[in-house]
């Protein structure tokens, strides 16, 4: 009787956890392992059916060709993709981590009015809350040169007509600006929420003492608030780097829907083909599953490395409570 009790005590937690583990294996572990494996194969539409019938079919070859192609210039378009990805990640990251810092200081500290600051905060959250396809619909309308408002607003702001593009989706520097803006609006609120929570948790005495000593509000922001936000800023930069590197859904939605569904050609023409979208399009519009997986493997490896760095940098407990301030 006693033994069974002890055994039961060991077994019960795993009974509760088994379903979770099964789903995690199905949706996470197996796909990651499979992506790593596929990166070393020549799987394409030609041998796909044979592969589905039998994972070890001789028609699928193990090869290093994909990685040779990626790292030794076998794909002439890849340097362009890399360049666009770097521009994309760095610019959106600047908005997500640093613009949102000024934003949250403005909303949570400069603006003392509660309802107004709540209203602004909710407004900034709208792009994040809105389903992606609706966000894409609204942008497609907004940038439309004939029906939309973007060009109208910009010429109201005094920008000469010649400088406005015929098509925000296709004309090159503009399309890339659009890509950064669209994702920046979504990302700004992430930093904003993390920082606002952190600013609110700064003991008011600290700020009052400085004010009594004759510091003005800019000095308080510069010398008290920003230094205390060091960890939240690190956290936002680290977290967003990874999610931006892998993000492509919004680009696919806006350029794909606006161009009538042919996302791959449009994204190439508009110069918004980021790394993750390139992998997606290689798989699902050119059916080169092996090569596409190899492109993804680069992201998987970078992702795992970054996650290990987070754990080292932040420690487990800090990751769980990202918005606390450490005085």
């Amino acid at each position: 009787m006693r033994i069974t009790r002890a055994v039961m005590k060991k077994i019960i937690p795993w009974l509760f956890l088994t379903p979770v583990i099964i789903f995690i294996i199905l949706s996470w572990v197996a796909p990651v392992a499979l992506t790593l494996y596929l990166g070393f194969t020549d799987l394409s539409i030609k041998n796909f059916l044979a592969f589905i019938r039998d994972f070890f079919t001789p028609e699928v070859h193990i090869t290093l060709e994909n990685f040779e192609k990626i790292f030794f210039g076998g794909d002439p378009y890849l340097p362009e993709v890399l360049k666009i990805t770097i521009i994309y990640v760095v610019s959106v990251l600047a908005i997500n981590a640093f613009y949102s810092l000024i934003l949250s200081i403005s909303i949570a500290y400069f603006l003392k009015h509660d309802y107004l600051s709540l209203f602004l905060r909710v407004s900034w959250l709208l792009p994040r809350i809105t389903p992606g396809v609706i966000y894409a619909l609204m942008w497609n309308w907004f940038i439309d040169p004939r029906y939309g408002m973007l060009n109208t607003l910009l010429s109201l702001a005094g920008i000469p007509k010649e400088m406005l593009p015929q098509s925000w989706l296709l004309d090159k520097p503009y399309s890339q600006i659009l890509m950064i803006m669209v994702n920046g609006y979504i990302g700004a609120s992430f930093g904003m929420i993390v920082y606002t929570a952190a600013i609110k948790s700064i003991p008011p005495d600290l700020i009052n003492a400085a004010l009594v000593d004759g510091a003005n509000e800019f000095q308080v922001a510069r010398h008290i608030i920003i230094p205390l936000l060091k960890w939240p800023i690190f956290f936002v930069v680290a977290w967003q780097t990874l999610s931006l590197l892998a993000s492509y859904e919004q680009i696919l939605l806006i350029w794909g829907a606006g161009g009538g569904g042919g996302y791959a050609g449009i994204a190439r023409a508009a110069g918004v083909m980021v790394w993750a979208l390139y992998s997606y399009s290689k798989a699902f519009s050119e059916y080169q599953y092996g090569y596409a997986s190899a492109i993804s493997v680069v992201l998987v490896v970078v992702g795992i490395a970054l996650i290990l760095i987070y754990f080292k940098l932040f420690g487990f407990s800090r990751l769980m409570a990202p918005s606390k301030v450490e005085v």
Partner: protein
Amino acid sequence: MLSLPRYRIESRKTKALLRSIIKYLIVIVVAVIPLIPVWIMYLWLIMQSFSPKVNLGIIPLGFTLNNWRFLWSPLKMGLKTYPNIWPITINTLLIALGVSGIVVLISTLGGYALSRMEFAGRTGMMKFIIALHAFPSVILLIALFIILNKLGLYGKGYVTLLGITLVKAGLEIPMASWIIKGFFDAIPWDVEWAALVDGCTRWRLWRSIVLPLVLPGIGAISIFSFLSGWSEFLLVFTYVKDEAYYTLPVLIYHMIGEYKMVDWGLLAALGLFFTIPTIIFFSTSQKLLLRIYVGGVKG
């Protein structure tokens, strides 16, 4: 202060005034002006959907329900004509309810074990869940495509939707377990001790004492996973090729390309129709959801 000469007090006052002007200028430039496009877009969506024509994007000229005709009359998309929007709405609802049901059931079990039980590898498991939360799942689409194919859950109508539901639920489960674990952590141990001392079994304890106490948490993860299933785009867009099994986001995606320029009113109404659940849930339980959305992996 009084000993200061008058002109110095004056100049301090001007300085303070100048500073507060600069302060509000920063607020306006940084936090208000960039919002103008956002406000215009949302106003447009609402105005355009009820109006035959809008002026300057947001000023409606007249009122009409014609844009909402997809609710009762046929809707054409490419070569396919749907009798009305409801079959597609039902597909979307099936995925949303399926994801929500699976996520709630499984992550409540898992979250309880993580919060309350001692077992080897507990910390490791929690670390793993956090790592999954940071890992971007969107790059796994190719591998998931092959797994669904292998499991026979691809290209077979509702069976494909079932496969998508399972995968989507699996992608949501780590975060949902983490959230519900937080709610379990907040219940005082004493409540459980009392019941255990009184001879309650773990299972009964869980069902009749713990579960009612975490109902708000269950509400939160069920709404959250419902919404994320409802607006899931990539999985359906990538894996469903038969138009009869599209969901609303994929339908709207294809409609934008086709009706852009031709009928913005229809698109706006369709978009608003699709956003209704999001609006309802956010206006009723925003605090709960915001807390969760912060941890989201979007953008």
